[in-house]
């Protein structure tokens, strides 16, 4: 119903749009952190948010699953539609939203519990498994999707916090996919990882786009170029440019984008 009213500015197939943001403003107290952002995020696509520090890309990402609700002084205005439904509507429970829109954080943050319990926690609280066998199945499937099954299958009872940084981050990704989300938000998922672990996670992101819409915030332009099909460049709270990744990196329309990707600003 609402989807029909949305003017599609970037000119993509409307049926393929997962998230649609219209005139989004985010304030931290008096600080206007996000200004007039309009963006359509596609399904089964990796979208990268790039931009210098403090440009608002993480803030915008966090408003997509209402993680900003946990910050008392933060205020979001404008419409953010997920499959045409306003996620900030009063009747929307953020808990249901977050089950659909999973999130992976900058620092790997496994629960201080066993690997099994880390994965099983989400399905348990959302009632996705009727019995132990089903839960076991979900855990295995999620760990396989997280590309970490072979490394941990013999020690599912070991604490998740005992894994290496890269393994922890893949565990967190597996945990996020265990609740069967439709969108996966990743806030600089590789910034705490070494190059080998980064490569593993990037490979994983590439596989995940077959089933999910993936939005990744990254500081590394090379990473954005490697993993994403769409790139959004943020600067000082504005969405400066949003286009196909190849276009952004080879033929940017805005001079600010060009300055950033060539290393003159940022």
């Amino acid at each position, binding site marked *: 119903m609402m989807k029909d009213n949305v003017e599609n500015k970037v000119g993509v197939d409307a049926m393929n749009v997962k998230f649609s943001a219209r005139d989004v403003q985010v304030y931290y107290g008096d600080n206007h952190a996000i200004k007039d952002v309009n963006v359509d995020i596609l399904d089964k696509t990796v979208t990268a948010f790039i931009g210098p520090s403090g440009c608002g890309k993480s803030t915008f990402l966090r408003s997509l*699953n209402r*993680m900003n609700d*946990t910050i*008392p002084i933060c205020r979001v205005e404008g419409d953010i539609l997920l499959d045409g439904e306003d996620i900030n509507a009063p009747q929307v429970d953020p*808990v*249901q*939203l*977050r*089950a659909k829109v*999973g*999130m*992976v*954080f900058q*620092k790997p*943050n*496994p*629960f*201080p*519990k066993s690997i099994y319990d880390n994965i099983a*926690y*989400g399905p348990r*609280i*959302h009632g996705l498994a009727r019995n132990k066998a089903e839960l076991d199945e979900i855990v295995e499937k999620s760990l396989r999707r997280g590309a970490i099954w072979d490394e941990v299958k013999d020690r599912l009872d070991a*604490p998740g*916090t005992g894994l290496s940084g890269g393994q922890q981050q893949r565990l*967190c990704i597996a*945990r*996020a996919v*265990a*609740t069967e989300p439709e969108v996966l938000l990743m806030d600089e998922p590789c910034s705490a990882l070494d190059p080998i672990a980064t490569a593993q996670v990037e490979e994983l992101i590439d596989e995940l786009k077959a089933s999910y819409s993936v939005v990744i915030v990254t500081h590394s332009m090379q990473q954005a170029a490697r993993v994403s099909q769409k790139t959004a460049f943020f600067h000082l709270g504005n969405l400066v440019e949003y286009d196909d990744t190849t276009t952004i990196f080879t033929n940017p329309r805005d001079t600010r984008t060009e300055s950033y990707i060539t290393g003159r600003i940022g």
Partner: protein
Amino acid sequence: MTDATNTGSLYDVDARTKKRNAAEKRFRIYGMIAIGLGLVFLVALLSTIVVRGIPAFQQTKLTLPIALPEETLDKSGVRDIEVMKKVSTFGYNPLIEQALADALDANGIENPFEDAKGLKPILSSSAAAVVRDEVLANPELVGTTHTFEILAASRVDGYLKGRVTRESVARDNNIDAAHFDVVDALRDAGIIAKGFNFDFITGADASESRPEQAGIGVSMLGSLFMMFVVLGLSLPIGVAASIYLEEFATQNRFTDIIEVNISNLAAVPSIVFGILGLAVFIQFMHLPQSAPLVGGLVLTLMTLPTIIISTRASLKAVPPSIREAALGIGASKMQTVFHHVLPLAMPGILTGTIIGLAQALGETAPLLLIGMVGYIASNYPDGVASGFLDPNSAMPAQIYEWAKRADPAYYERAWGGIIILLVFLMTMNILAVILRRRFERRW
């Protein structure tokens, strides 16, 4: 290059470096002196407590075969308890004195007094009651000679422990040096001896004239029932309040005021809580005076801020990334708190609670005002309800009470009581450490 010293050889220590090193060395010495002083005070404190308190755990007793003639104790001869109860302790006293005189004869010790009654000051005035209770409990003893263990008088006890000397009793109306001659002979004969004093740990308080009989057991129960009240109220209230304030409440003026006031409450002198308890619990709500229930309520008020502050600190110490992780996969706020935050904060909460309890256990001032100090805790509670509601004392109150009494024998018991109190406090602190370790290891 304005500083010429940078050009010199590394092997020469320049004046500035020397000065800095000397300052550091001085600071280290100050630190060591401070720690040394602290240790000296600690050792002095502990050794004084042990040296003065240990004698309270020893008590002098006489082992006497006492003849229990039927004609004095049960004239009717039918062993009817109600009839036998008519013979008061005054009926038993001569029997015990005679038994002691007989024991002197049997061991060839001369009785320096005119008669058996002259030996009375050697015996505790509780002796007759002890024998009478035993006889009433076992009426078949009447007509036989039974061996009793009876307490020696506190001055005899003090004499054997070195607290009372022959010189010090010169002007004492209660006992003479001649009695001590008898005591020496009795000790050599093995009739009078010191032994471990279980009754001090388990027994009830006694009147001012019978320090040898006094024990801390009943007031220990009083403290125990108070701690039940404190734990049962302050842990759930304190933890619930902290979780709400820390995780759920919005930051505004009102919650700021609450926070400031909780910190202020932690600094309020405990006697203020005492008078509040007197006014609210006793005068307004008409709860019984001197009852552990009221004591526990007052101590709960006092302990709550401690528990709230430590619980909030341990909730704050849980990394925010754990909360984000849980919220990020769609856990509700309450699930986040109860499944992830609270288990991680548990060691801190438990430690804070036990420290709060230990503080409450040692608190005396608020008990002054609700009548738990000065109450002679001479009766064991009959059951759980009476444990909460019947007047009782508490360990620190009992110690204060003993220290206040005139007889030096009570002074010794006060030190002994301190040892027991410290053992409890240390046990609780060790428990806190163990629980902390255990819970932390789980993760």
